[in-house]
């Protein structure tokens, strides 16, 4: 059972969705997340940078003859923080359902 823990870094709507999308897979290409969220490259880059600085997302750039691509992976720390944050959101949502 994950301990509920509010996470300021993940709380921003776009960052929460980025983490949720990355949690469903091992890694995803930058364009998949960008198109999924319908945001621009620069906006996604900004959020990824914040998550990367917090150690929640790992960024890998491919090299070689094929066109370069950027892959994003949620780190174990990111998975843990997301799980805690979602548990906290569920706790808050459930509290409203309790009889007063």
């Amino acid at each position: 059972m994950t301990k509920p823990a509010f996470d300021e870094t993940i709380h921003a709507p776009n960052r929460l969705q980025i983490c949720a999308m990355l949690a469903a897979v091992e890694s995803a290409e930058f364009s998949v997340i960008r198109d999924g969220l319908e945001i621009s490259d620069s906006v996604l880059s900004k959020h990824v940078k914040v998550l990367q600085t917090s150690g929640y997302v790992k960024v890998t750039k491919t090299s070689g003859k094929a066109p370069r691509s950027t892959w994003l992976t949620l780190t174990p720390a990111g998975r843990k923080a997301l799980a805690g944050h979602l548990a906290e959101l569920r706790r808050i949502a459930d509290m409203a359902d309790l009889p007063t």
Partner: protein
Amino acid sequence: MRPESPDAAAARAALNDVTAARARVLRHVTRPWWYHYGLGAAVILFFFSISFRFASFGAPIMALTVLGLAAAHKRATGVVFSTTGTMGAKRTLLFVGVILALIGTAMYLEYGRDVVGAHAVAGVVIGVLIVVASYRTDAAIRRELRADHDQAGL
């Protein structure tokens, strides 16, 4: 400045956004038809190469095909997802058992009884089984990821 904790309505809205975001990425969690059939074809070719004595070509071709399919699939879908543990331990054991039994029978027939083409026949059966298992694994992954109890995908 520390953001305030959301109220119940905002928390529910955020959880709904999470579910929607996961649904969008789940559209990519599927391997194209050519991946499944390519894998099956590579395996069939390998077993044909054993039966008809061109294994020195068949084995590297199979290895390159599998690696090429994995790379092409990654580029085509834009996601990498784990397939380990999806079939369950019992089904995996059964699947491996059937494959080994087919290979064992083919070896016995081809090398012990001089039945030419036994590996090729076994290869066709194994190739078909691999295509079916590959499709079923994809479906199981999507089911698993959609399951409510795994809402965070963790």
